[in-house]
């Protein structure tokens, strides 16, 4: 093995982890740690990231890392931050990285508490839009009309009927200094947002769209293409908020939502019949509403 291959193996999130082929979450974690550097302690609730990075005896983490329960990620992160503070270790910061199930649903009370207390933690949600580690059950982050194992497509319903919870807005309403969304499809932007978040103290939130080839149902080499299409459609708006105000958005040349949806098995039913076409039209309305709300279009000159 030569010196450069060795350098790769010394990355803060090392190879040898057991994520699926082409996993967007694994790639985003690699870039999160490139942005933070090694003076961080990472806290990870149960989920894919925890599972693929902790088979006993084989850790890819080259920073201190702790796994705990599914439901208490933010509380443990707060505790680690308090302990570091008590030891006078202001040089080491705490980053929590959790899935959407634990962030939007199961650990939500703990998340709200952490933001209400304004503990010095950067909380990052690696959002793949369902409970992937257990096979793809619906979460509060699952997009409308996606088929999941707990609301499968059938005679009764066309996948999930409800909206994706607007968690960035809910977190911002706690008074958080910094809230942002990013996509693994845009890794420079992702790293910039992590670095920006680290300039603030107190509780901060970053939500990263991380396409999942295994459960969304697309080939493992399309992860970033799917991510780009989601952003371009307006269904995955990228923005930054400081103290509750939107300060920056990533402009797009909007494409129609079908271009994003079509390549994914979880939306396959939307292209099967007439009823599907009506549902695609409803998703287009949601995308258009995002584009108007955040002033995403580079063509309208908005925001």
């Amino acid at each position, binding site marked *: 093995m030569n010196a450069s291959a060795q350098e790769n193996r010394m990355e803060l*999130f090392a190879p040898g982890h*057991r994520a699926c082929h082409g996993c967007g979450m694994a790639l985003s974690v690699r870039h999160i740690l490139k942005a933070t550097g090694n003076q961080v302690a990472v806290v990870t609730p149960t989920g894919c990231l925890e599972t693929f990075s902790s088979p006993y005896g084989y850790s890819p983490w080259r920073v201190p890392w702790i796994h705990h329960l599914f439901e208490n990620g933010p509380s443990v992160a707060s505790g680690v931050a308090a302990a570091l503070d008590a030891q006078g270790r202001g040089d080491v910061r705490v980053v929590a990285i959790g899935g959407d199930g634990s962030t939007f649903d199961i650990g939500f009370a703990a998340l709200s508490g952490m933001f209400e207390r304004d503990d010095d933690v950067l909380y990052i949600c690696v959002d793949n839009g369902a409970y992937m580690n257990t096979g793809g059950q619906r979460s509060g982050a699952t997009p409308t009309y996606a088929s999941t194992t707990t609301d499968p497509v059938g005679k009764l319903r066309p996948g999930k009927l409800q909206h994706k919870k607007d968690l960035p807005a809910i977190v911002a309403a706690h008074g958080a200094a910094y809230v942002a969304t990013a996509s693994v499809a845009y890794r420079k932007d992702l790293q910039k947002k992590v670095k920006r978040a680290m300039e603030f103290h107190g509780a901060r939130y970053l939500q990263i769209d991380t396409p999942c080839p295994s459960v969304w149902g697309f080939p493992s080499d399309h992860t*970033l293409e799917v991510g780009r299409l989601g952003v371009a459609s307006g269904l995955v708006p990228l923005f930054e908020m400081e103290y509750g105000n939107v300060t920056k958005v990533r402009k797009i040349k909007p494409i129609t939502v079908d271009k994003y949806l079509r390549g994914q098995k979880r939306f396959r039913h939307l292209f099967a019949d007439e009823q599907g076409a009506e549902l695609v039209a409803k998703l287009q309305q949601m995308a258009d509403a995002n584009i108007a709300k955040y002033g995403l279009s580079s063509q309208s000159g908005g925001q």
Partner: protein
Amino acid sequence: MKITMGAVVMGGTSVLYPTGAWRDQRPVIDHEACKSCDTCRDVCPDSSVFVQEDVYYIDYDFCKGCGLCAYECPVDAIAMILEEK
């Protein structure tokens, strides 16, 4: 495997588990066509593309063969070929 005190595992020990064994497609870089743009290295979820004196190589010990590097390469310098065992 013996459990250590507090179940603490040393950082970076994942490199003792070569995920290259999972691969059924092998990326092969055409060094003539490659423009050294760094895209493949940037997009690899398994940190398995490395560069030495501006020349890019695959670390086959860890590459799972997902094909992201080949798909993202702007000059199509990476081919995915069937892995033969």
